[in-house]
């Protein structure tokens, strides 16, 4: 009797090509859409909705993003301060811009205000920024269709 030796047994080989193709395509997809710039986002802020809030065509020059919470505090980078307290941080930012050779008046303050924040607080924040020397402001909103008839006066 002659038994087949192990060497004679044909080893089954899986074709890896389609799997590698698909995996690389997935990686390419995620690499293209990944966004590491988390500095201008904050999960705590629920932005107001607007159908006309289109993403800007060109990025703002020297953008400074301020997050105004519903409690009336301002988040700037890792710091959370009161509205008057933001002055010190903005002055530091202004010095940094000057040292870099940029004009602080050309910098854009992006205000990401929570939808439940008070309008007066947004205006106070703008006033503090003006006092420091910033002049350009944009109000950020989430782009989503919302019927204008929904938010009617309650009084």
């Amino acid at each position, binding site marked *: 009797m002659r038994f087949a030796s192990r060497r004679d047994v044909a080893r089954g080989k899986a074709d*890896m090509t389609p799997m*590698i193709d698909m*995996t*690389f395509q*997935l*990686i390419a997809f*995620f*690499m293209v*859409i*990944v*966004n590491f710039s988390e500095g201008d*986002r904050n999960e705590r802020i629920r*932005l*107001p*909705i*607007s*159908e*006309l*809030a*289109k*993403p*800007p065509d060109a990025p*703002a020059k020297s953008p400074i993003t301020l997050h*105004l919470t519903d409690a009336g505090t301002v988040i700037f980078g890792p710091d959370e301060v009161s509205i008057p307290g933001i002055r010190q941080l903005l002055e530091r930012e202004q010095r940094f811009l000057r040292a870099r050779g940029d004009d602080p008046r050309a910098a854009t303050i*992006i205000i990401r*205000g*929570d*939808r*439940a*924040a*008070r*309008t*007066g*607080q*947004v*205006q*106070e924040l*703008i*006033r503090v920024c*003006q*006092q420091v020397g910033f*002049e350009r*402001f*944009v*109000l*950020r*909103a*989430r*782009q*989503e269709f*919302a*019927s*204008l*008839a*929904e*938010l*009617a*006066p*309650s*009084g």
Partner: protein
Amino acid sequence: MRMGQRREEDTGVELQMTPMIDIVFQLLVFFVMTFKIAAPEGDFNIRMPLVAPSEGIPEPDALPPITIRLSALSDGRLASIQFGQRQLKNFLELRERMIEMLGPDPGPSVIESTEVELDCDYHLRYEYVIEAITAVSGYVDPKSGQVIKLVEKIKFAPPRAG
């Protein structure tokens, strides 16, 4: 001499696929874990006069701004919308009044010369301000899907105690 036989044995070169597949899957897992679906965001430009207003004679062609008064209840909800002397039902009506005043498709000169001032109570919830800005800024044409601009210059009046 058995050279021919040796050549046949050496033809199969095996690439080590395992390390490559390992690293590729690690990359894939990293991207999947860090992936976040972020809603698109957009901006509204706001014109705010400087703290110290510039002295001098104002421009003779400058029109007075259209004032929209938004008053609030004590809890921040919207109490009323006032456009000139008229009380409006909602922001949709505000947009209709703006279209009535400026035309359905105002040209660049009208957009450039028209300014809206929002006069809001301090405690008004911010979402109503964005609604008002949306209503006066323009609208999406239902036929073409294009945004028709009405006003670009928007500013705030000093906040009221409310």
